[in-house]
Structures are given as structure tokens and as C-alpha cells.
């Protein structure tokens, strides 16, 4: 495929439109994501990052504007099973053990039994939960649950990965390891990733582009190209350019939050 993977044109999302407490979660969002991009969304809490992800994934319909995915409507892309989603909360099924939770999309997509088992095995190894394959979700810690959710989203190699703070609940070591694993998978599988994070370091380390958003209304305030060499590895973190880019993103975030204060003052 040659065209962009995700195109958002003038997307607005207003919750409870017309009501006194309506929320303008997304305003005039224009965004274009190319094949094999790794995009991070960063911004203050409540600025509409999850909402943007849900619009792309066709889990909510925008109030206005158009989302085009892989050259088709977001809805068609969803029906074609183009998305792998990791929600902010793990969202495991209580009645399925770890292995069965990872298998859920594979079952729905009619993978053969051997393929199902092979992939489940590989994914559990990836997130280091092989020993917990038979455990139920309530027997896992929050971070372990989140790792199951990540394994589930990666298991069927979706063409677009939508990840909402997937590593937020993890310790620093696991987080860095899974960062590298995610980059590995991304490189190997032609996946396009839309990734929400609160960590500037993580955003710069992983991404090809970092998108900075501001709150109320949720808008894109900066779009920063991360021109660090690929593949990213431990050395990337000591690259001088890495610090420059971190500073640039931090500055953009500061301005976006400051701008919000200013715009509120005269009103």
C-alpha cells in the first residue's frame, strides 16, 4: 500500500453536544499517518488522547470530520480487522485464563488450532507470562494484566496498533524491555503504531513522530519529527540529539499547557 494509513480531516468530537456540560474533546484535528510510522500522542490528562484513538479505531463516531484508514472508512477498517487495541485499562475477560485471553482475537479470526497455540506460546514468552498461562485475571497484578492485554493485541499482527498508555502500569525495567520488543515487532511486521503516553522519554525513544496536544478543546499543538537513527537501542538514549528532542517536546508541552491558561484568562 502506498497511501497514508490514517487520515483525519477536520475531526471534531463533542460529548453531550448542546448540554450545559458539553465537552469539546477534539477540535479541528488534521492528522496524516504514513505506513510504518510510529506516532506518539502526548498531552495533559483529559486533552482527548484516548478519544482520538477511539475515533481512529471506529469505537466512537466523530461529531464531524472524516477518518480514512488504509484508504477506506474507519468502520470498514474495523470490519476488516485492521486494528489491534490496547486500552488504558487491561480489559481482560474474567472467565478466561491468561492463555485463553491472549487467544481471544485468534479464535474470532479463525486461526487454526496449531497456529493459535504457537502464537499464544510466543506471545506469552514475549511478555514473560508463560508460567501464568493457566491463571485467571484476578490472580494477576495490574502490570501482569496489562502485559496480557499487550500480548493479546500483538498476537494477530494487526496492520494498525492503537495503544493507550500500554506501559503505564509497568516497572521501569519491564517497560524498557517491552519498549524494545515493541520496536522489534513494529520493524518486523510493517505495523503502524499510534501510541499514547505521558512519558516524554518514552515518546522520543519509540516514535518517528511525536504529536503534542492541548486540552479543552483538544487540539494538536505540535508535530515533532523524531529523526533519530533506526534501529533504536540502548545507545539511542545517550545520543545528543535524543536530549535535544526531549527538550523540544517538553517545551512544546509547556507551551501547549501555558497557551491554555492564556486563552482562558480574557474570557
Amino acid at each position, binding site marked *: 500500500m502506498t497511501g497514508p494509513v490514517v487520515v483525519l480531516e477536520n475531526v471534531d468530537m463533542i460529548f453531550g453536544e448542546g448540554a450545559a456540560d458539553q465537552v469539546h474533546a477534539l477540535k479541528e484535528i488534521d492528522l496524516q499517518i504514513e505506513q510504518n510510522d510510529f506516532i506518539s500522542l502526548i498531552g495533559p490528562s483529559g486533552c482527548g488522547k484516548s478519544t482520538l484513538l*477511539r475515533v481512529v*479505531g*471506529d*469505537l466512537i463516531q466523530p461529531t464531524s470530520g472524516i477518518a480514512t484508514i488504509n484508504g477506506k472508512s474507519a468502520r470498514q477498517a*474495523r*470490519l*476488516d*480487522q485492521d*486494528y*489491534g*487495541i490496547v*486500552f488504558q*485499562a487491561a*480489559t481482560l*475477560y*474474567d*472467565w*478466561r*485464563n491468561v492463555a485463553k485471553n491472549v487467544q*481471544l*482475537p485468534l*479464535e*474470532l*479470526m479463525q486461526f487454526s488450532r496449531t497456529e493459535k497455540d504457537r502464537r499464544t506460546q510466543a506471545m506469552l514468552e514475549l511478555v514473560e507470562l508463560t508460567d501464568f498461562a493457566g491463571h*485467571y485475571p*484476578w*490472580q494477576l497484578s495490574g502490570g501482569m494484566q496489562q502485559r496480557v492485554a499487550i500480548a493479546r493485541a500483538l498476537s494477530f499482527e494487526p496492520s494498525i496498533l492503537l495503544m493507550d498508555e500500554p506501559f503505564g502500569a509497568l516497572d521501569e525495567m519491564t517497560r524498557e524491555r517491552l519498549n524494545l520488543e515493541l520496536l522489534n515487532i513494529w520493524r518486523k511486521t510493517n505495523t503502524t503504531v499510534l501510541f499514547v503516553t505521558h512519558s516524554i522519554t518514552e515518546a522520543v525513544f519509540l516514535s518517528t513522530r511525536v504529536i503534542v496536544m492541548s486540552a479543552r478543546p483538544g487540539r494538536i499543538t505540535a508535530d515533532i519529527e523524531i529523526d533519530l537513527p533506526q534501529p533504536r537501542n540502548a545507545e539511542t538514549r545517550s545520543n545528543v540529539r535524543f536530549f535535544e528532542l526531549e527538550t523540544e517536546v517538553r517545551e512544546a508541552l509547556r507551551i501547549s499547557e501555558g497557551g491554555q491558561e492564556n486563552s482562558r484568562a480574557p474570557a
Partner: protein
Amino acid sequence: MSESRQRIWAPVLILVALIFLWEALVTAFNIQQFLLPKPSAIVGNLVQVVLLDGAVPKEDPVSEISLDNRFIVVVPGEPTPEMQATMQEARWWEFPLGARRVSVLRGSNLTPILAASWFTLKEALGGMAMGTLAGIAVALATTRWSATREALLPFAIAANSMPIIAFAPIMNNWFGIDNPFSKMAIVTVMIFFPIMINTLRGLISVDNRSLELMRSYAASDSEILFKLRIPNALPSLFSGLKVAGALAMIGAIVGEYFGGPRIALGVFITQEAALFRFASAWAAILVACLIGISIYLVILLAERLALPWHPTFRA
């Protein structure tokens, strides 16, 4: 392990203590049998233990000692031929105890009470099966059509708080007073609403994120039903079944209070009470209670087998 054993033994001990207290109080205050029979008199209708003890001095002539539905009877010396004959007929088993012999007999009302219980249990289970199937079917059907559901649910909730047992005479009239189906019909209707409402609640109260996950995989409605809604509904279906299990025996027995064949438990109880044979009425009630508890335990067991993942069963 020891903790769970403690959990079982504490209530058992309390129960035993209460029974002894009951026995002692009825004896001490000399309460009339028709007001409150002694527990031993009640159990004596079902089981009798005869202690044949040659060592006891013969104060009473043996011939004056009657077995007469007493739970524990001490017979000094050799029993009379008539007593011997009765014991022969009703004997369950006999074993020596030192120099004495213990003979366990079926109580005189055991056979009719068990026969009546079996008859009534079949009504209860039949009604429970029909009510459960109907409740689940309607719940499944209305999951799909939310408009129908919204329209029907208030009626179902209102119906759930109606005393459906009041319809028992009507059902007896519709299906025939001696026809077990008249009692099954009452049980079916009584059970339908708790099952339906509980199942429906489980089917529709699906976490929004879980639903979005399914949608993100483009799962079909039937896949969402089988892989998400039904497993999500199982715990509340079992809560409904526990309520239903208690209602089933109530429905069948009270239905029989309004009339039924002679071999029904409710009819047995009303007749014995009418004839002032309260101890045997109590014995029948005791058996009904035991059946009710058994139904509950079976449902509990089925729940454990069906929901091994449920956190309430954590080891």
C-alpha cells in the same frame, strides 16, 4: 483447611445445641404436643432406635412399653412377640453393643413421607426446569431487542414482586387438582421472573470496554453473545437459580395445600395437622426442609463446577 473445617463445624454445633435446648424446654415446661412436639418425637416418625437391654431391671412389664413413634426406646429383657413382629417388619439393621443389642427401625411414617416427598420433588424440579428454560430463553431473546426489553422489564420487575402463589387455586382449576402439572405450572411461573431478570441483568450489564474490545475485532453479534454476554451472565444466572431453588419447594408444597393427590407432601402435612398428628406433620416439614437445603447445595456445587474462574471460589 482447618479454617474451612471450623466454618462447617460452628453452625453444626449451634444446630445441635438448639435441638437439645428445644427438647429440654418442651420437656421442662411440659408443652402440649400439638403446640410444639419434641424433636425426638418428630424424628421418631422417621427413625426409631430400640435398645434391647437384658440387664435393665424389669420395673415395667415389657408388654406395657410401646414403640409408638418414639425416637429412642429402651426395652428391658426380651421383647414381647408382638413387639418382635413389628420390629422384624420395620428393621433397618441391628447390631450388638456390648451385652445389649441395638435395633434401628424405619419410623411408621417414613415410607409415606418419602413417597410424598418424591412426588412433590418431581413437581418442584419439573417446574424449576421449565421456569429456568423459559426465563433464560426470554432473557436471551430480549437481549437482542432493547426496545422490547425496555418495554417489558418494568412488567417483569412488577410481576417478580407479586405473590404468584396466590394463583395456586386457579392453576389447580386449570390443570386439574390431582394433575402434578398444576403444581409445576405454579413453580414455573414463580421461578420464571427471578431467573429471567437475573439472566437478563448479566447479559446486558457487560462492561463497555469489553464490548469495545469485541467490536474492535469486528466480532459478530452471536460471537459477542457466546464469548462475552453469556459468560458474563453465568454468575447472576446462578444467583437466580439459588432464589429459584428455594421458591420451587415452596411453590409445590403450598400449591398442594390448596388440594392435590393423597401422596403429595403438602396434602400429607395438611391432613396430619387436621387430625392433630402434629409430630408427623413436623416430620414431613423436616424432610421438606432437608430437600430444600439439598437443592441449594446441588446448585452451589454446579456453580463451582461451572465458574471455576470466579474469585469467590479462590482457594
